[in-house]
């Protein structure tokens, strides 16, 4: 299971318009709902906030990886959002988060969930990749970045 198995243009929101953590999470979930990837936005939103309460998923360097295991999804779901201006996501380095990888997994798919999160962790270490990703203007550009 790789990011490219999950990412499609309709999973990507560029640019995000929300300016707070909660609004951005909801914005990404509604985008995924419109794409037909999820149904129960409220349950998932609550699961994401519960996880954020235990510690922010704002990793620093402009990356945030909100994620949750929830029975509200039947299969792994990935959403990608880019906020060029950045928002306060309580990141560990105090810097605004600009790239968001939202990952949702059903409880019985821990292995696949782990693989996708691992790939995101690796991507997050590539400053050059992130720089280009932030400058993407369209969902198609974002998907193309991952194909390269």
């Amino acid at each position: 299971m790789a990011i490219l198995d999950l990412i499609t243009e309709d999973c990507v929101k560029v640019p995000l318009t929300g300016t707070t953590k909660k609004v951005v999470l909801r914005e990404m979930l509604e985008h995924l709902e419109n794409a037909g990837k999820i149904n129960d936005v409220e349950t998932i939103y609550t699961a994401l906030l519960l996880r954020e309460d235990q510690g922010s998923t704002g990793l620093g360097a402009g990356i945030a990886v909100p994620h949750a295991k929830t029975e509200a999804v039947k299969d792994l779901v990935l959403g990608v959002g880019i906020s060029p201006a950045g928002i306060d996501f309580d990141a560990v380095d105090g810097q605004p988060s600009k790239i968001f990888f939202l990952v949702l997994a059903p409880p019985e798919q821990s292995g696949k969930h782990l693989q996708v999160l691992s790939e995101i962790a690796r991507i997050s270490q590539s400053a050059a990749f992130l720089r280009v990703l932030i400058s993407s203007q369209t969902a198609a550009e974002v998907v193309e970045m991952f194909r390269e």
Partner: protein
Amino acid sequence: MAGPIEKMMVYLDGTEESIVAAEYAVCLAKGCGASLTALYVVNTRALNDLVRSRIFIESEEREYKSDLEEDAQRYLNHVQDLARKKGLAIQTIKSSGAINTEIKHKVEELDIDLLLIGELSRIQSRRDEFYNEVERAMRSVSCSVMIVKNEDRVWSLYESLV
């Protein structure tokens, strides 16, 4: 004189492809009289990386580790059943660490002649080439490697095995 394959190992990763590899391994082991070991590696290296990168908090690491251990046992039990149904004894090993290095170590430790793995996923980007753990293992192990393909044919072979 012993045959060219005395000790086989099949690597399981929870995918359908690895189960197909296990079915074929049972057929092959029966056919050539080789011993068969099934290995599942709980990827604790990835869990550690996720904690280090701050994607996971420690309670998540524990929870996922427990989930993965259960998955591993479930798949190993399933493959044990597949072998038992065909009258083949199989050794199962649940290991943990980095997948490619664990496979390599077990191949050396058990003096394996042939490693069987499931069909590899399609390479979609350069990252896939760099980070596919099973492919890395395939390249680095000291024994011969067989990639098992054609699920329907393998199932038919397995079903017809007495």
